């Protein structure tokens, strides 16, 4: 890229920044007050934390598609048949890492369970719990305590897509009501918890899979 073009890009970026800042400062207050709307419908959502209510009830289809995107990314990652020389096994015979994993992983799983349960009424939920589970899965794999990642069997595959399938099943069952993912208010809390449990397991495995298959390509 030559110097003039480079200067033009920098100049353009500066101009864009100035324009965007001016636009943000001049932005009028939105006509629709979303926080008030969310607060008004919170009692019917089945949970008491507004972010969880938005994620899994009011805009549940966002979350449904998001898990599909994650699964798609993993499939895309695995579809690029990796060359052999990039695979490497972590060095065996390390005593510290397995010990650390044995101590850490139960606490990680416990934290994930708490985060999942807390999501209904305070910050937390399936995504945060899934991220913690993913960390636990990576630690287990690095310590060679979870060989399932080397040769993924039926259980791991089911775990990877289980959350999405469960979510889809709930969405399909509720489709009889005429609207996508409109939970009946008396069942909403239970359904959201059920979906969140499935999502936590699947998100954890998917995130760990994205990390581990990228670091250490194997065929699924």
């Amino acid at each position: 890229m030559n110097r003039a073009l480079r200067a033009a890009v920098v100049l353009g970026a500066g101009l864009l920044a100035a324009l965007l800042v001016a636009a943000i400062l001049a932005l009028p207050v939105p006509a629709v007050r979303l926080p008030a709307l969310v607060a008004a419908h919170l009692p019917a959502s089945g949970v008491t934390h507004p972010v969880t209510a938005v994620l899994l009830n009011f805009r549940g289809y966002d979350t449904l598609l998001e898990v599909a995107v994650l699964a798609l990314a993993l499939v895309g990652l695995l579809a690029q048949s990796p060359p052999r020389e990039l695979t490497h096994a972590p060095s065996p015979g390390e005593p510290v890492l397995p010990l650390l994993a044995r101590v850490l992983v139960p606490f990680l799983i416990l934290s994930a369970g708490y985060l999942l349960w807390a999501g209904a009424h305070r910050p937390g939920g399936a995504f945060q719990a899934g991220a913690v589970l993913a960390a636990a899965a990576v630690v287990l794999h690095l310590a060679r305590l979870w060989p399932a990642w080397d040769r993924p069997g039926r259980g791991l595959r089911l775990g990877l897509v289980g959350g999405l399938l469960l979510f889809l099943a709930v969405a399909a069952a509720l489709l009889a009501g005429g609207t996508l993912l409109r939970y009946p208010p008396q069942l909403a809390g239970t359904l959201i918890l059920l979906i969140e449990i499935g999502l936590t397991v699947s998100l954890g495995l998917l995130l760990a899979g994205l990390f581990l298959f990228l670091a250490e390509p194997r065929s699924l």
Partner: protein
Amino acid sequence: MSSGLVYAVVGVLLFVLGAAGMLLLPHLLRKILAFNLLGSGAFLILVGLAQRDGGVDPVPHAMVLTGIVVAVAATALALALLRRLHALSGRTQLADESADE
């Protein structure tokens, strides 16, 4: 100027920095990093603008939470593609750019 607006303005700067980085940096790993910076800027704008008048809006929060997870997945896929390109051709830049430099 409320603190929410400050966050939004910082988000704009990160967004523009990321956009310029994507155009200027030839190495694909740097492009992926710049793309992530651009995305983080967009998230910061969304969350910052939503609370510029004090209150917290759960709708942008939920959208950003969704966006972060999608960005992680997209980054992983991009890295896998980059590694595949490197394994096949030994290059870490796009073809026309390496001819340009």
